[in-house]
Structure formats: C-alpha cells, structure tokens
C-alpha cells in the first residue's frame, strides 16, 4: 500500500517556501497534508481562533485582514497564511476570508514549526514573504495618502445610488435622505446600458430648482436633473479630478471603471483628502495672470519632477503628473489667450497629442498639439482669430519649456487647425486608405486627448477611431510596420549601439530606442481591440484582458516599459540636479551593473514583442 498524493506533492514542490526543502521532506509533508474547500465569502480563520495548520492557497483567492478590519493582504494560488499564529502562540493573528471559491491545503503546524527550526532557507523564505507583504502594505498606504499619485477610485466609498427618470422629486429626496447621499444618479426608463446614467441631481438642485421656485414634489426628477454629466475615470489622479471639479464648478463626479459607474465622488471627499504640497505647481499655474508668470514656474516644474523621482514614484505617476502640469499650462494659456483676443467666433477644442495624451510625459518634451474647430467654421472670417490664438499658446508653451514640435504638428500649422468634418476625413483616410508612408508621421494622432473647449469633438474622433480601426486589417498592418521601424539596441552590453548623429557615440537614446517603440507596439494592439485607454500601461491591461498576447508576455512588457522609463527619468533627474540640460541619451558607464543587466533584459523583451507583432500582422 502506498498513499502518495501526487497533486499535493507537485504543487508544494513548486512553491515557496516548500521549494527550499529537500525532496524527502516535501514528500513527507505531502502525505501529511489535508484539504478544505471554502466557498467565496466564507470565514477561513477568525481572530484568536486556535490554529493548527499552515494554510496554502491551492486555487482561488483569499483576503487577510488586520484586527481592526483593514485589508492586510490578498493571496492567490501559492500564497500561504497562518504562519504568524503558528510561530507565536498558536492563535490566529490575522483573520482570513475567501474572496473567491478557494481550495486550501492544510499543512500540519507541528511539521511547519519543525521545518522552520531545522532549515534556515525555509525559514528565510517564510520571513521574506512576510517582509515583502509588509513592505507592499506600507507602500500602498504611503501612496494612497498622496493626492498627487492616488487615484480617484480610492475615494469611492460606496456603490452609486440612483433611480429611474420617471420617479418623483419626493421619492428622490426620500431616497437621498435614507441613503445619506448628497447626489443621486438618474437612469433612463428602459435604458439599454443600465450603467450609463442620464443625469444627476444634487442637494443643491432640490434647493434651487424645486424649493426656491415652488415646484411640486410630484414632478418627475428628469425635469430638474442636470444632463450630460461629466465623469472621471477610476484611474485618474485625485488632483486631476479636483481640478476638473473646480474648473467646471461641479461638486459631484461619477467615477467610471470599464464604462461602468462605480460610485460618485463629492468635492467634500476630495477636500478632506487634500494634501497641500502636491498641488503647488498646478495651483500656481492657474493663478498666473501673464505668460511671464507662467514662465517663472519652469523651475518649480523641474523641482516637482526631481522630488517625485527622489520619492521613488513610479513612471506612471511621474508621467501622468507631468502630463497634468503640461495640460494645465495649455489650459491657462488658452484662457489668457481668449481674454486677450476675445471669445472664440465658433466653438473649438484644443488637443493634446502623443505623450501628453498618453499621460506619459517626461521633463524633456516638445509640444504636439492641434485644434478642432466647429463645422460652422469659415476660414475667411474666423481663421485669423484661431491662428493668433494658436500662435499665442504655442509661443507661451515654448517659453515655459515645451519646445516647438520639429515635425510641425502644432495648431499653428493650418493643416492641424481644421473643422471637425475635415478631421474626420483625415482619420477616414488614414484608416481606410492606409500606406505605411502616409501613416509614418500620423501615429501621434492616435493618442489624442481634448484639453480645452468642446471636449466632445475629441471624443467624437476617438469614437471614430475605436469603431473603424479594429476592422481595418490593412491599417493595423501599416501601423504595425511603422511600429517596427525603431528597434532596441540588442548588442547593448559589449558592442554599444551608436546613434547615427555621431553626437552621442557612447550613449543610447532611451526614448527613440526604448519607450517610443514600446508605446508604438502597444498602440497597435490597443487599436486592434478598440481599447478606450490611451496610457500605455492601461492599454496593455486591456490587451492582456483581450488575450492577444501569450500568457506572461503582458507583465513582461509592462515591466520592461517601467524599467526603461525609469532609467530615462532618473537620468533626466540627475542631469537637472547637476545643472545640466536633461536629454534622453543615457551613457552605459553611468549605469550600475544591475541596471545594465536589467536594461538589456528589457530590450530583449521589447525585441521579442516586436517579433510577435511582425508575426501577428504577417510582415516580413
């Protein structure tokens, strides 16, 4: 008779800390292990309960809590819990519940304690896991407290409360009182998409639109609601959302995640969360009354950038903070421009393109912008105004450190200052009649974001892209071909790739050979699936969700992008602190062995991702 549980054995062998043990110990453990199943939402361990087994997650996911109910950690397959109790007094220290349906392997605590004493590497692996969890938990807390980097989602405390548009004002008031909310989302009667609200009503509406005018409380709520509500994306920074509220004079913003409303954030929530220092630069931008005052803020922007690098912010935080600052400069310049030139003769939308639209801006950046004008635009009557406005903004941006675009992709160029109808033709042409040559300098337009004016114009173009791009294989193939034009330097370690301009013989352009080609290839995949995201990391998440990449390749590419971006960002921060002019060219001597090795790995991942793109679109 033999009783070998092969599945348990194989699983333990592959996971820390058991993979540190000699085979015979793991075999022994696998024969002593029991099993239990927990449906999602079950209590697995309660505080102070006696604990006799080390719990190992075989499948599913569990949540570990602090005594006070705060989430401490989330574990999935291969994670283990209960070790703290086993190593101390045999009582549960951190309660655990199952987040998903979970199968748990129960390794006897007596064995665990013996192995912990007998095998140093086993004990180390257990403790490393513990320390890492702690660090992760600390990191989360630190960043959640910083308004500059925290996302608006962290301020969503509850599900959105809403009602049908035919309900009465009285019902609405009752519901708001009962649910203790200051706003209510209003949904259409039989709306196809139940997640998209029709409008919103707030406490203020009840006061101003009902009580003050003596409206009957039996009136339907749709009579008093505000339509066309402005929403924020769940991953937008809190201070971006706050700016949005301040500038549009809104006190409530519905928060969207994957097209669904996950809650409503009130201005009071944001103010409560405010941390003054992080708003310094943006606040000053909007207080500046002249271009000269804006220009004077250049040094503050640099200081913010260096400070974020020093504080170990990641590239996504830095990239989006720099983009918000850049956007704020544009917005304030347009405001000043309109003050100077008078109100615009027809509505328009000012666009950010490229890295600013992707929220991936660095400190070294040029201005890529454009204008969409209302279709009633008449060049003879109106264009002089818009040219002057574009020139004012462009010159202003240049004085604030955003150099003119060498490719002349600026609103000052007549070609990029056109009515919406013409813009739609541009995109139709690019997507439906593509050639690699025509698209060569156009990829930047597929990262497009409205920053001022009729933002809906920009959204219309983005919608058009989302509708047409996934269906046009030839367009995608051309975009793919162009995305392969810039390759990473692979002989990086020994034979350093030199740039052709001769200027930086021993340096590597981390943008042209690194971050740009990664953004390019992620963009192609994102266009192919009609992703709504613009940020490369966010796009990559969508691409992974759509199962386009081989499992594991998505996270690899994300890490590669993060690594190359951070090498570039750190290099620029260092230049700034040394009083030099920052650029994208990193010298290998300036890198540690560790960075060099990682950078080489990152370039290898980029190269493989390019090969995959080539294969996917059958390019030779």
């Amino acid at each position, binding site marked *: *008779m033999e009783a070998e*549980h092969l599945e*348990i054995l194989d699983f333990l062998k592959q996971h820390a800390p058991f993979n540190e043990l000699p085979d015979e110990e793991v075999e022994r453990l696998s*024969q002593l292990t*029991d099993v239990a199943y927990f449906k999602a939402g079950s209590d697995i361990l309660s505080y102070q309960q006696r604990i006799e087994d080390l719990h190992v997650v075989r499948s599913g996911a569990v949540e570990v809590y602090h005594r006070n109910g705060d989430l401490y950690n989330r574990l999935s397959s291969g994670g283990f819990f209960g070790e703290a109790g086993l190593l101390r007094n045999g009582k549960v220290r951190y309660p655990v519940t199952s987040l*998903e349906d979970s*199968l748990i392997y129960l390794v*006897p605590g007596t064995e665990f304690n013996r192995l912990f004493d007998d095998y140093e590497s086993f004990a180390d692996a257990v403790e490393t896991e513990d320390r890492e969890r702690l660090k992760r938990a600390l990191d989360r807390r630190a960043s959640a407290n910083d308004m500059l980097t925290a996302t608006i989602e962290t301020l969503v405390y509850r599900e959105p409360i809403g009602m049908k548009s035919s309900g009465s004002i009285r019902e609405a008031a009752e519901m708001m009182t009962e649910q203790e909310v200051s706003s209510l989302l209003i949904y259409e009667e039989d709306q196809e998409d139940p997640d998209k609200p029709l409008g919103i009503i707030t406490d203020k509406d009840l006061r101003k639109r009902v009580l003050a005018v003596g409206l009957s409380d039996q009136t339907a709520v749709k009579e008093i609601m505000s339509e066309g509500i402005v929403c924020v994306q769940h991953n937008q920074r809190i201070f971006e959302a706050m700016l949005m509220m301040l500038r549009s004079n809104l006190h409530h913003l519905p928060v969207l995640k994957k097209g669904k409303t996950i809650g409503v954030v009130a201005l009071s929530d944001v103010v409560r969360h405010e941390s003054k220092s992080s708003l310094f630069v943006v606040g000053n931008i909007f207080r500046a009354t002249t271009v000269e005052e804006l220009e004077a803020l250049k040094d503050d922007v640099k200081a913010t950038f260096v400070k974020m690098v020093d504080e170990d912010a990641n590239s996504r935080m830095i990239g989006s903070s720099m983009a918000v600052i850049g956007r704020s400069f544009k917005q304030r310049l347009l405001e000043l421009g309109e003050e100077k030139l008078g109100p615009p003769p027809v509505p328009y939308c000012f666009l950010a393109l490229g890295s600013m639209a992707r929220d991936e801006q660095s400190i070294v950046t040029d201005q890529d912008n454009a204008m969409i004008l209302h279709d009633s635009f008449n060049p003879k009557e109106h264009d002089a105004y818009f040219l002057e406005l574009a020139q004012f903004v462009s010159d202003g941006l240049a004085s604030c450190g955003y150099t003119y675009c060498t490719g002349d992709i600026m609103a000052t160029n007549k070609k990029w200052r056109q009515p919406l109808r013409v813009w739609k033709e541009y995109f139709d042409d690019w997507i439906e009649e593509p050639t690699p040559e025509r698209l060569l300098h156009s990829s930047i337009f597929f990262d497009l974001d409205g920053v001022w004016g009729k933002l809906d114009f920009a959204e219309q173009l983005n919608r058009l892209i989302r509708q047409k791009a996934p269906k046009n294989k030839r367009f995608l193939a051309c975009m793919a071909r162009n995305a392969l034009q810039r390759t990473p330097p692979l002989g990086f370690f020994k034979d350093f790739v030199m740039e052709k301009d001769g200027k930086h013989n021993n340096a590597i352009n981390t943008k042209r050979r690194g971050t740009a080609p990664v953004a390019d290839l992620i963009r192609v995949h994102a266009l192919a699936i009609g992703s709504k995201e613009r940020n490369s990391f966010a796009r990559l998440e969508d691409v992974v969700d759509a199962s386009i990449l081989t499992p594991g390749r998505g996270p690899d590419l994300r890490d590669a992008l993060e690594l190359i971006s951070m090498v570039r960002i750190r290099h620029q921060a260092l230049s700034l602190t040394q009083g030099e002019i920052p650029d994208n060219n990193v010298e290998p001597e300036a890198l540690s062995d560790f960075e060099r090795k990682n950078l080489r790995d990152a370039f290898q991942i980029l190269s493989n991702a390019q090969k995959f793109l080539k294969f996917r679109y059958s390019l030779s």
Partner: protein
Amino acid sequence: MYLGQRELKSALQSQINWPARLQELAGSARNSHLQHFYSATIPNADTPLRDVKFLALDFETSGLDPQQHGIVSVGVVPLTLERVFANKGKHWLAKPRKAMADESVVYHGITHSQIEDAPDLLETFDELLEVMSGHIMIVHYKAIERTFLDVALRERIGEGIEFPVIDTMEIEHGLHRANKTSFWQRLKKQPPMSIRLADSRARYGLPFYRPHNALTDALATAELFQAQVQHHYSPDTPLSELWS
C-alpha cells in the same frame, strides 16, 4: 464517457432504509469481514450532513464492463464537511483475474508489470472493508464502484456487497441536466453541461488534477463534494436527500 439515460434514472430510485438493510445483511452474510462491515453503525436517513463521516472512493478498472473487466487500483480518502483527511488516504493496486485489455494500459497510467506484482483483491479487501465501515461512500458515477466491487467479491468469496453511496455525478446531473436544459440552450443548440469529474470541478473553482490515479480521483471527488454542499446544500441537509 457517454452515460445513457437508463443508468442516470436509476439515480432517482426510491429510498432504501439503509441502516435496516445493512443490519439485515449482517445477519445473512457468511464472510466474517462482510459481517463485520455490515454490523458497523451507520447514520440514519435524517442525520444532518455535518455529523456524517464520509469516504471518497474511486476504482480504476481495466474496462467498463464488470463482467469482463476487473479492478486494478483502489483509492480512498475520508472526509467530513469541514476537512478532507487526505493524510488518511489509502491506495491499493490489484491484479485482476481477467486479462487487462492492452489499450487500457496508457489510460490508467499503470503498467502491466506493476499489476503483475500486485496482490489479488482477495488479499486486501478486508483492509478496504475496514476503512469503509461506518462511513458513507462518495463516488463520481456509482455504477462503477458499486457494481465492480459487488462482482469482484462474488467471484472471490461467493457473495456480493451492498452499501449506500452519494454520487457527485448524480448531484451535478440534477443541477445541470435533468429538466434544466433551458429554452435558450435548446434554441441555441448548446450542448448540456459536461458532468465529468474535471469539468464539474472547474465549475466550483477547483484546480485541474491529472485523472486516472485512483487516489487522486478519490481526493478530487472528496473536494468536489465539499464544494457541492457549500454551494447547493447546507450542513443541516439530511443524508436522505443525497444518498441512494
């Protein structure tokens, strides 16, 4: 493996009063191990599941016909609703008296030489009955385990065996097949859901286990049963709702 409606219907048969039936058999059995097995106390029909000791049981056989094929391995794992006692699991190899069909060699992951060296079931069935006694058996597709053991004992000791079982396949069948093919599924010609062990497990978030090792299959069945009870029944559900 395709299952005919006939076998599945037998699942819904009338209730047997199992404690009384086993007591009766204890009186009539001639083999001492069988007598011992039947005289162990088993829970009543109205005992809640929380108080029952179960034993997940799985056989690997050399084929599907109990008259022509034999048992080549047996895996058992005891459990309660709270815990699967994998560490008390047992596994026996057995040499069938009927020749092993060639094509089944790969299927079971057991080689001829392993089987050649294995003892006849006659030498180990007393151990098996010992661990079974006092437990309610859990199997995935009872036609195999109950019939093969019955036939094997008839051939060896001249009398068969009866015992109550809970069939996890029958539970899945009740949930996903019987009267549950929806109008939409029929309209869209969707096949009814598979109730094979691995597919059933996947629906409860249970991991994939490589099939056809009797001990692994018994463990897999035990885990599936815990999941089924947590999702569709309660610890207070009486045994009579599930056994047959």
